[in-house]
């Protein structure tokens, strides 16, 4: 078992690919861009080309752009380490043409360690295959025949690529260099009746509490709905503010407030400015969290704690299982375990009842398309490897 601990660049570079993959798995890193696909699995079969998906696309979002602005050094160290560990021949950053100025510092450092690939501004949902098409001269095949007679949609490894979103890679940096598991996620809070904020909040925080912190009068905002996502891709977060709640997921990218009688996509022309204060951490500032042990593609981790236990921030509370996709789960706040039900560990007050947490574990569609896109072919790939 590889330890999650602080490591120097030289120590990180000395990790074997297997060790680094295990660190990612234990640290609980999943695709933060919305896919939620377990990151470790993408590195199990090394590919020659890593593409950073920095094409944050939903109208109004700032999280990933701020991640890059505030973490240039971290990305440079990570790129060097990833080349050494996984033998990447090439690392590219996929960036929209319109964001050239924002990424100017990265362009200055693109001197062989990595390169910038500017892609058309066409809104493309950060979809991996589209990014590959636009940023390289390669195409992911539409469909692929597998050796066992199955046919599945093509995926990046079919053409030697690994694609990771910006925040996901920052989480990889945090795990490899700082020994920090993923207990937070970065998202934009914006829309009707609220000043835009970008928060780094504990996974499992309550939407209602985040909105209160952001300055919304939750009790008197029943005319608003909250989307977990942006104008195009979202799940319904809270249909009627003040009457329900939901929880921040590992792949939450935004909380977007709209009038209840409108559709998200009516706000596709939303334009926002980045917040002057940058990313604001809410670690230690929420009263309760509901941390999922699994969900989506993930088999639930085995809980390491029981009701009534006191846990520290970043204490391990779930051990990944060996079958299927599974990741380590860590406490996103310190406090008392108030319940463990339906594969959700509640810590602290928890502003909302358990039924809501269960509902959150299976997000429902809400007019827009649910965030997805990269999971299914990989699921089949996982099935193939297990055969």
């Amino acid at each position, binding site marked *: 078992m590889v330890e999650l601990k602080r490591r120097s660049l030289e120590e990180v570079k000395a990790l074997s690919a297997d060790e680094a993959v295990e660190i990612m798995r234990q640290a609980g890193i999943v695709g933060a861009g919305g896919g939620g696909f377990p990151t470790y699995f993408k590195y199990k079969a090394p590919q020659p080309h890593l593409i950073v998906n920095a094409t944050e696309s939903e109208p109004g979002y700032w999280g990933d752009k701020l991640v890059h602005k505030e973490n240039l050094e971290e990305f440079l160290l990570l790129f060097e380490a990833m080349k050494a560990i996984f033998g990447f021949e090439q690392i590219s950053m996929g960036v929209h043409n319109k964001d050239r100025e924002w990424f100017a510092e990265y362009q200055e450092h693109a001197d062989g360690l990595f390169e910038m690939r500017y892609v058309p501004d*066409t*809104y*493309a*949902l950060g*979809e991996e*295959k*589209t990014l590959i*098409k636009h940023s390289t001269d390669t*195409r992911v095949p*539409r*469909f692929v025949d597998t050796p066992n007679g199955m046919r599945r*949609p093509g995926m990046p490894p079919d053409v030697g690529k690994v694609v990771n979103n910006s925040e996901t890679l920052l989480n990889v940096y945090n795990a490899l260099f700082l020994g920090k598991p993923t207990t937070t996620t970065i998202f934009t809070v914006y829309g009707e009746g609220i000043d835009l904020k970008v928060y780094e909040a504990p996974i499992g925080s309550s939407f209602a509490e985040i909105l209160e912190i952001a300055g919304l009068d939750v009790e008197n905002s029943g005319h608003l709905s909250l989307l977990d996502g942006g104008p*195009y*891709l979202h799940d319904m977060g809270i249909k009627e503010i003040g009457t329900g709640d939901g929880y921040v997921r590992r792949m939450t990218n935004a909380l977007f407030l709209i009038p209840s009688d409108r559709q998200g*996509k009516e706000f*596709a022309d939303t334009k926002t400015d980045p917040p002057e204060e940058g990313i604001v951490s809410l670690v230690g500032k929420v009263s309760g969290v509901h941390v999922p042990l699994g969900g989506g593609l993930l088999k639930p981790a085995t809980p390491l704690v029981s009701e009534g236990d006191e846990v520290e921030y970043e204490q391990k509370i779930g051990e990944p299982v060996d079958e299927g996709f599974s990741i380590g789960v860590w406490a996103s706040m310190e406090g008392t375990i108030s319940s463990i039900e339906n594969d959700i560990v509640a810590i602290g007050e928890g502003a909302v009842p358990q039924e809501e947490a269960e509902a959150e574990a299976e997000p429902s569609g809400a007019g*827009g*398309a649910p965030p*997805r*896109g990269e999971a*299914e*072919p990989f699921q089949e790939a996982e099935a193939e490897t297990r055969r």
Partner: protein
Amino acid sequence: MAYVITEACIGTKNTACVGVCPVDCIYDAGDHYIINPEECIDCAMCMPECPVEAIYPGDEVPEEMEQYATKAAEFDYSAIAPGWGTN
């Protein structure tokens, strides 16, 4: 470069593509579904959903299917609403 729905949709009209399209740019054109290239944002979400592999990226449409790209470009979308069961 928009995606194009081709011949295999005829007689299938599964609608899985309609369900995943985030911009509602897929219309019922009678025999088959059709993507409005003016509205398509090139996100590729529809392509893997199609059970009969009828959907191609605009620049990968096989020559014998080009008529579907032409039809999609020239189609009058003003008279119908996107989606299924609405026309």
